[in-house]
């Protein structure tokens, strides 16, 4: 199975979303919030597309990679699910290392919040990433979709209408 950064991020946000996404049930196209995030990613740093490289291997796509300094730049809208963002870029660092690029680092950037956060490869991360990969595979291979867990982030999720649409037959 081909695991992307999105899989790793969803593992840390919602298992149901991960399962649906992995089975091709995608909803991102319906969401204005997703569209806004994409726009922020594409337009916040005008010069970036020229300065940095887009990297794609092992099914992973890194939008902005600073080849000279070996730094991944990952642009996000808000830090609401920061843990997921950290997991995602750590997975990128893992994939880079596997492809012979050692000692790279990452920066999470939140242009709307005027914040950035450095993420470095740490002792024990390898085991952590391997456990993420195992967990993703295990969830995706489940026969049934994981049940609904109501969270405060649900309202902003592009799967909200899918998950919560129903008939109130009480």
């Amino acid at each position, binding site marked *: 199975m081909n695991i992307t950064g999105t899989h790793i991020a969803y593992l840390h946000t919602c298992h149901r979303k991960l399962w649906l996404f992995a*089975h091709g*049930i*995608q909803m991102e196209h*319906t969401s204005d919030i997703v569209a806004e995030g994409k726009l922020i990613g594409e337009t916040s740093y005008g010069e970036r597309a020229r300065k940095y490289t887009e990297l794609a291997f092992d099914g992973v796509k890194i939008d902005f990679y600073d080849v000279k300094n070996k730094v991944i730049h990952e642009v996000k809208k808000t830090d609401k699910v920061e843990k997921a963002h950290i997991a995602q870029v750590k997975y990128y660092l893992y994939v880079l290392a596997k492809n012979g690029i050692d000692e790279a680092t990452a920066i999470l950037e939140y242009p709307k919040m005027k914040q950035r956060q450095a993420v470095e490869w740490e002792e024990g991360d390898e085991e952590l990433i391997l456990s993420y990969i195992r967990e993703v595979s295990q969830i995706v291979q489940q026969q049934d*979709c994981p049940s609904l867990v109501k969270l405060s982030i649900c309202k902003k999720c592009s799967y909200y*209408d899918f998950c*919560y*649409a129903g*008939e109130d037959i009480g």
Partner: protein
Amino acid sequence: MKKTYYLFNPGRMSRKDNTLKFIPVDESGREGTPKYIPIEGVSDLYCFGSLDANSALYNFLGKNGISVHFFDYYEHYTGSFYPKEYLLAGKMQIEQTRYHLSAAKRLVIAKKFVQGASFNILKNLKYYQNRGRDLGYYLEKIDGLAAQIENASDIPGLMGIEGNIRQSYYGAFDHILKDHAMEGRSKQPPLNEVNALVSFGNMMCYTLCLDQIYHTQLNPTISYLHEPGYRRYSLALDIAEIFKPILVDRTIFRVLNKKEVQSKDFDIQVNKVILKESGKKAFIRAFEERLNETIKHRTLKKHVSYKHLVKLECYKLSKHILNIAPYEPFKIWW
């Protein structure tokens, strides 16, 4: 918010940079002032007039996931430019097929469609009953027929019940409509004004459902109540059953009783009656208003439009097929 564009005037549509450009052309071939439509604001195009376009335009529309629906002079739906499927999900396709192939599983879903439709039909009748129409006979009859749905043992039997419900329901039209008579359902061709409106409205509803299905992972040819893929995108026919009473019939009652559509809006011939352009426009105006009306949704806890209800129906059906939650049809509750 993306909008549906209805093209009545003949003209040329083209791509101008990343915008749509429409140049109307009058009867003598003179070009009018071009109109520009930003692509981000377009959900789909309905072509009632003759449209001149080239492949560059269709490539552009296709990349943006915009369908174009075509209708002939007699307001028949003739086909769609349906962009490449962009939401392929093998899992969903397989499950959708599996639910179709199992007679028992198929019947469960088909019954839900008929139940939803008959509930919404009864709701329409009750609304007019409360406004002084004498519809007791029809309410009772349809109630009795609806009670049989649960016992239907196969699809043809279920279709029979559905047909009888529709027939009784159309009988009630003559009591709801003030100045028009339906005198039974006639189609291909419709023989009077009411039938012409019903045909046109049903076709609009079908096309709407098709559009909403397109933006989900469901396959529009695999259906449950109707036979699949027989000339039509039959899943759109299935879902349309639930929404026709709410979206189409209520709009017909409104436009006729409020005289927004009148006899002068029809082209009445010996053996057929068709809507004139003025009639189509008046109906679509009312239909669009209906689609954009919002209600507070009970499980989503937010306001959604009638149009969005159709997409939610697709989600609920997807969840049934993926074994996430049993499908319950939309039943109007107000």
